[in-house]
């Protein structure tokens, strides 16, 4: 029924209606996007303090040569190999569960990954080895662990 004549008043009204509908919808859409963006920023604020990254492990004498000590609360394993201290994070590199001692190596309770004594992957699903961590003997005879820094091994 609509003619192609742009002077037809019905057609004009229809155009006007459509235009108004389109603009209001677009405005609502934009407002929604803006609100969503605001919500994302609102919920993204971190109130939880950052986790501790440096740990005092106590006197180095507590880690005699040849010893293997698991500190489950950090969690980390500390080796003393003939006076050289090495440490590996016990956080599974797959999805973050704490691996448990399993013979010489470690096993993850969640999805069954297994690691060698030196953190190398024995069995998936984990692909990355356990993270070696920097551990330092301080002058006062205490050991200090840095969980943020990787040791170069």
């Amino acid at each position, binding site marked *: 029924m609509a003619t192609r004549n742009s002077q037809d008043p019905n057609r004009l009204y229809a155009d006007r209606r459509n235009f108004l509908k389109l603009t209001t919808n677009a405005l609502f859409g934009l407002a929604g996007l803006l609100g969503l963006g605001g919500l994302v920023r609102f919920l993204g*604020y971190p109130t*939880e303090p950052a986790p501790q990254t440096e740990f005092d492990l106590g006197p180095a004498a507590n880690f005699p040569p040849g010893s293997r000590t698991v500190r489950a609360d950090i969690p980390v394993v500390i080796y003393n190999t003939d006076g050289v201290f090495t440490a590996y994070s016990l956080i599974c590199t797959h999805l973050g569960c704490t691996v448990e001692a399993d013979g010489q190596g470690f096993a993850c*309770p*969640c999805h069954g990954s297994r690691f060698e004594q030196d953190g190398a992957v024995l069995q998936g699903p984990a692909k990355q080895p356990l993270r070696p961590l920097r551990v330092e003997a301080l002058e006062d005879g205490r050991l200090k662990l840095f969980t943020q820094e990787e040791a170069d091994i």
Partner: protein
Amino acid sequence: MASTSRFKLSRGLLLLPVLALGLGGVLFASAAAASPVYQANATPQATPTFDPKRLEPPPTNNPPGQADKGALQYWGMCMSCHGDRGQGLTDEWLASFPAEERDCWQSGCHGKDYSQNSFELPVQSGIPAIAGAGKLGRFENALQLNQYILESMPWWNPGSLETQEAWAVTAYTLKLNGNLPLGISLSETNAAAIPVHRSVTAPPSEWPGALALAALLGLAAVGIMKQSRQNTLSALPKPNFVHHLHPPSIPAAQARFRYTLGAGGLAVFFSLTLFVTGLLEMYYYVPSPERAAISIEIITTLVPYGNLVRNLHYWSAQALVLVTMLHLLRVVLTGAYAPPRRFNYLLGLGLLTLILLLDFTGYLLRWDEGIRWALVVGVNLLKTFPLVGERFYQFILGGTQPGAAALTRFYAWHVLGLTGCAILLIIWHLFRVRRDGGIAVPPPDERADKSRITRFELVRREVAVIAVASAGLLLFSLLLPAPLAQPLSDNALVLGDSRAPWFFLWIQKMLQWGNPFLWGVLTPLLVVIALGLLPYLLPNAQPGELGRWFPRGNRLAQALALLIVTAILFLTVLGAFPH
């Protein structure tokens, strides 16, 4: 004819909830049978030569907590006998004494003829250890332990401790045993709920109250059913509010139980139960890491009918997952999602997703050792999203590790965010049922049948199903308690069980195959999307086939859905028995 169909109806009514709950029961009995095993905290190994540093006063925190104060008290009064690690007067501990003082019961020391400024130690067999597995066996909870310390300790001057000092020593003793919840301050109002060992005291019997409730509800249900039955179309009473929520009448052929299985109605009922019991739990639950598990312990063991309320909430949640899945399967296997019901099918799928999220957040609110790995894995999966992973994690958790902020958020999502969305979707879903022309299209041979049932009859049938479901729910709640372990602690090696909640066992199983994002996020998402696309991409049932099970038109979709369900069930079973 009518009587036989009624007989079948009532028999079917009885069967369904029993089946649904039975299935849940089997799943949970297996989960309960293999419930977490608590290992004693490893006692530190004795050093070869005695380290004098062990005799130094304990480090103090500033400001000192209750256990820190207790540590100082312990160091001053208790340590010489009970040891620096609560090991008791062992040879190893005696080695810390000067050589001439190692025989405590010798004449003139703590023996019978003790010296003027000393006292007698009667137990020649040894001073008991107060920390370690199996120690402090006679005390059930911190209240009893504190009572004993207050009355009988220290040995040479019992009753000399001030109330606050005794609480501090009790707190430190629990800490030595690894059983002091993080950050809690012991007092008379909470100590009875804090176990000295991991042996939860049996909650008070709730049978009499629950049975009385069941009997009253049962009688009321019978009353309603009798009442409504007398109605005929010619003499209808005025509808009450509940009646008014229903259409005045619907075609009799639409309300066939063998077709609907009552699954949708049951889902509404379980949702209402969850709403009410959840509301009651909110009066006691404290969403903070230190107190969450303890507050649940208080609900289950101390609050009158708290155990019943929590178990009803728990079992309704499990049943809701099962009946929603059953409902989804029914809709696919009858091809009922064909237009114009495609959109409502999507709403339903959205509700199922929301219900799973609600179940998971509710499960996390326990904040006990039982949820440790599910929490770690669940939140770390957020990190696996490409590019936005870290930000997404922070967006959900409010920090870089799960802590107080995360618990507050899970709580907010559970009680309001997700619940609010679910309520909106439920109302929308129900509205669309009516707008799309009722709960079901009758089968072709019954479409000519113009007989209708009134809303009074509809409510009567609903009451019947609800009565049976309530009975099952009460029974499960009384017989099988919802799980609760010791509060989440710093020590990550206390727990043996590492399984996901049962409805996510299939995902946990898939995660063993490698890439976390692919198996933990993408695949579950694809399952939901695939189900959502069924009515849009695959052929639908023809209008002439609707109203019956297994129409030819959407056989492909039925096969696909059954395949997905079978795969999920299979993986769930594999995941339930990891070894």
